[in-house]
């Protein structure tokens, strides 16, 4: 379905829309900027990558998931796929560090949509930093408990 048409339906009201303090924000998992705008609203686009934090154990390197939007002709889940699939997204856990994840993002966008690409990368970096801080704290706490 065309992104333009969907936007006309969805821009006024949707489940991800949050209006606060005069700001129009979005909790859309495919939106990496947080602000609801036509280009950043990923769930209506054909290809988008959402960088999503997950709650995971301390031992995980990154508690981040990349949620890639699917554009299939008929909206069916591909059972043979390796990563977690849903009707609208394929989820890829970031296991091997930020660099590999960023390559996934870059490959997805190629040379187009630089703004979106940068937004995704920016969010990836921020989440990664937050994760490392959290990991450090949790490890320190665990160590202190051991003692």
């Amino acid at each position: 379905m065309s992104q333009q048409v969907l936007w006309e339906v969805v821009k006024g009201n949707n489940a991800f829309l949050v209006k606060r303090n005069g700001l129009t924000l979005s909790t859309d998992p495919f939106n990496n900027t947080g602000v609801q705008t036509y280009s950043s609203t990923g769930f209506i686009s054909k290809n988008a990558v959402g960088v999503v934090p997950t709650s995971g154990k301390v031992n995980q390197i990154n508690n981040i998931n990349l949620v890639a939007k699917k554009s299939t002709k008929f909206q069916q889940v591909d059972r043979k796929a390796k990563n977690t699939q849903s009707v609208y997204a394929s989820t890829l856990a970031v296991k091997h560090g930020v660099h590999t994840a960023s390559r996934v993002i870059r490959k997805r966008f190629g040379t187009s949509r630089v703004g979106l690409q940068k937004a995704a990368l920016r969010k990836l970096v921020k989440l990664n930093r937050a994760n490392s801080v959290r990991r450090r704290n949790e490890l320190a706490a665990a160590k202190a408990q051991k003692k």
Partner: protein
Amino acid sequence: MTSVPLVSVFSADDSSKVTAKHIPLPAVFQTPIRPDIVSFVHTNIAKNRRQAHAVNPQAGMQHSAESWGTGRAVARIPRVSGSGTHRSGQAAFGNQCRKGRMSLPIKVWRRWHRRVNIKQKRHAAATAVAATGIVPLVLARGHRISQVPQIPLVVEDKIESYEKTTDALNFLKRFGAFEDVQKVVSTKVVRAGISKQRGKKYRVRKGPLVVYFNENAKLLKAFRNVPGVEVVNVTRLNLLQLAPGGQLGRFVIWTQSAFAHLDKLFGTYRYSSIIKDGYQLLRPLITNPDLARIINSNQVQEKVQPAKTTKVLHEVQKKNPLKNTKAMDRLNPYAKKQRAAAAAAIKANTKGTKKIKKNKALKKASRAAYNKVAASLNDATKAAVQEEQDIKVKYFSVQKGAAQTE
């Protein structure tokens, strides 16, 4: 559309099994999405379930109140007649008065219901059905469909014979629809306002809509106690259920026969509807609504003029070329050379010119004179300080060492 999108029918018992692999999508799902028609029809149709109510016509008017007129130093509003009670002489009848009747009291004969043209209602229903097949719209409506295997979700007719709620629940769990039901359960809230005392205590979200075909189906009883789930027959599809609140994109679970019936119900682009007499599906104004693709297509890009670059005609702030060398150079490229030549000439002449020599000599002389004066001043101050010390030592018998501190 050159290629008709295909849909699989799932087995009721096992969500990984597909009983019918590729069924073409009914034409309704290709209908253009028209939120304007839907919202118009919805706002009107939503009024049709209203029950007449009114205010007691005598409310606030059961007095023999009369205005006291002018000259009594009170407002001219009608006042309650009689005496012996607080109420006497108080204002009555007006909407602004305490215990007065409301302005424009509601009458029972208010126009509660709205009729909408049949065609509009049918178009709205068709659009709403189409929207249930579009994943982003279902997501935007807020349904939890991350575990659902396919949208639109079509299941074999076996579910129509479910009688037990457990069967229904297990079915929903198998097909990932239970997440939506859980959303409904967890977001059940006590309603704000007086309605809670009027039989509408809770505000409950909408969950999946199950659409069946056979009239003898027992699944209504199985599904009716599951929170949020609604059950409806295809022949009686309701816009208020397909687009609750006027918002497109309800999560719908179709049975196979219901799904197959849609073509007869709404017709296709090849034949008009068999059941809805003379109804023809709406045709889109643009067959290809993907503007980005159209603009970037070869056919358009060939004809289009090259993109205009923003050409800066002049700088935003004016620079004075007489003071700003770069601005001067921009206007007169030779100015740079001129300046260099002038500087060179000056340098060449510097050593020989009389005036410069004279100035230098004068400078030297004045510096010498200044130094002389400064030196004499220095000596004078030194002498004065010394003299002060001597006096202190001589007359105030202050020790030579201590004299410094005072």
